[in-house]
């Protein structure tokens, strides 16, 4: 049994259910729960649900401290860029403490950060920064692409005993999809094959999973069978599912909304070039954002971002297909 809800609501559903299940779950952040009508405030009261000042360092740091003291805070950070004013707290505090204390403390926090709001949010708030955090030891990083994964990964994130950075794609917020009824937890480190195929593997994350699926659909009409894999969590990262797919298809295209040298794409390619090299029958191709700050104006914004056309071109090149004029 399932129900259809938007991606944004699915995240809220998981937080609400976990707060009902475990009184140690706290939920706080800027510009939330400021009115007594707020549904979380009504359900869980002002001890567990709080609005904060514009103080990301304190917010994330307090999540860390509350976690060390035995609670499970979820801190809403709104836009991923706002983590940058507090990057030390994201990278160099919570994720280190379990290690440095030889397990004496653990830091079960969830940091929720929206990203990729490429609809005129301009240079400082449209970024795709997840790549910066992917390789931080001790930190888990989550990037759901569907409402079901959005809920299931949030459930798992709250239950996980480590700091989790939860990247919510802002352009997917209103996208609806089926979400299983009842408790729904998606395991970390298990990539999801969003579409099966045999000729070529596309690995994509977040919004670009949908770009990849659209391209796969177009290519299916041309008789090309594309497999689309969504890693879902980029730390831990499921290399095996990708390697197994490439072992069958021999071809890999990686799509990423980040710029090439800040991308998850580069890491995926590197893993396959080392561990799956012998499966490859053609160069791997990366479809990423161009090396540019994102412009405000739509034509310039569009120009630098990956889109279906760019994915199709990469697939054609990888498979040696003749391009089909649009």
């Amino acid at each position: 049994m399932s129900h259809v809800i938007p991606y944004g609501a699915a995240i809220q559903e998981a937080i609400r259910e976990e707060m009902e299940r475990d009184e140690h779950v706290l939920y706080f952040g800027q510009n939330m729960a400021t009115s007594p009508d707020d549904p979380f405030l009504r359900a869980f009261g002002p001890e567990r649900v709080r609005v904060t000042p514009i103080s990301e360092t304190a917010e994330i740091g307090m999540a860390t401290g509350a976690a060390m003291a035995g609670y499970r805070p979820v801190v809403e950070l709104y836009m991923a860029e706002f983590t940058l004013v507090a990057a030390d707290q994201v990278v160099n505090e919570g994720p280190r403490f379990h290690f440095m204390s030889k397990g004496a403390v653990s830091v079960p926090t969830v940091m929720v950060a929206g990203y990729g709001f490429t609809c005129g949010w301009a240079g400082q708030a449209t970024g795709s920064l997840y790549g910066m955090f992917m390789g931080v030891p001790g930190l888990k990083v989550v990037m759901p692409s569907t409402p079901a994964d959005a809920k299931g990964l949030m459930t798992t994130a709250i239950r996980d005993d480590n700091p989790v950075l939860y990247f919510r794609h802002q352009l997917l917020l209103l996208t609806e999809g089926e979400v299983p009824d009842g408790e729904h937890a998606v395991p970390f480190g298990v990539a999801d094959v969003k579409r099966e195929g045999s000729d070529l593997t596309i690995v994509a994350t977040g919004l670009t999973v949908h770009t990849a699926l659209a391209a796969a659909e177009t290519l299916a009409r041309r008789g090309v069978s594309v497999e689309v894999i969504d890693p879902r969590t980029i730390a831990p990262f499921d290399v095996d599912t990708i390697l197994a797919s490439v072992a069958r298809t021999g071809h890999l295209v990686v799509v990423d909304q980040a710029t090439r040298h800040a991308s998850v794409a580069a890491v995926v390619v590197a893993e396959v070039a080392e561990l799956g090299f012998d499966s490859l029958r053609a160069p791997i191709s990366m479809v990423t954002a161009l090396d540019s700050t994102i412009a405000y104006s739509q034509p310039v914004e569009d120009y630098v971002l990956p889109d279906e056309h760019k994915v199709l071109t990469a697939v054609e090149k990888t498979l040696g297909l003749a391009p089909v004029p649009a």
Partner: protein
Amino acid sequence: MVVGNAMNGGTAEALGPERLVWIYTQMFRIREFEERVKSTFTDHPGIIRGHTHLADGAEASIVGCIAALAPGDQILTSYRCHGYPIALGTDTKLMMAEIYGKANGLCGGLGGSMHLYDPPRGLLGGSGIVAQHLPHAAGAAWVAQIRHRGEAIVCFFGDGASKQGAFHESLNIASLWKLPVVYVMENNNYNSRTRTDQEDANAAAGEPLSTKAKAYAMEGITVDGGDPVVVYATMTEALARARAGEGPTLVESLVYRLSAHGNLIAPPGVPLRYPDHEAIAIFGNRAEYEAALRGDPVPRFRHRLVIDGTLRDVDADSIEAAARAEIDEAQRFALDSPWPEPDSGLRYVYA
């Protein structure tokens, strides 16, 4: 710590009728511009993307500050940045075209509403990330200090920004180094959907936010940001102190924004528009909002200039008509301007 009207009379005289009328003119131009930005959401849906933040309600504070600047002074701003360049003389056509994302925009459509730059007129830019331009202002003030030309920097930001670490770090250094900078906090009592007393320990204790200056051994002052003459007087003094090497000032300017924090924000496809002010939409406090409307600084200042004989009603009317015509023209220019070339940004990634 609120500066009363006492000094106000004298300052108004010192300013003289021409400057007072200039101030009113800029206030009205800003208001007209902002209302046109707002109405664009309904009159030309889809033209404005992303997020805009309007200065309506803060015109008196903005123009009072800009009026106190001397040539060579520079300013830095937050994302709520339409008002200052208008008062500095930036072409409203270029501004509107920027907000519409057009090739002829002030920044060729690369910046947008939150990122306006006009260095020749003293607008060095700012930041869309809350409070991050406060250190930029200190850096520019360091340069002003060692250039020894008597120039100063003014940095504008919101009440909410004073809860960000960058505020704290910047004001300490600015005071320690006696930098020629004035920090102007436009306290509109809201950070987006949060009331100041929900997020600020001073506010919750009933203290003015200029109290924070004490943590930096800095001058702190709270003024009625609805009165451009009071603001001008305060800024003139603060700037004089700054130029004289006597250190920076934290000016808390009490304003009320007359629009919501910004337009609604949503993924493409959902129509964007301005919702009700948070006093109404979040807190159900229509009375607060209506009181603010009654205190609207733009008609309040017109009224005062008319009453004291500085401005005749008919002259006020023609100032307003001229502003309307100017903004009509700006909007037409912006609507008619072409979109930027898709690859036009790539030339500006690196200098």
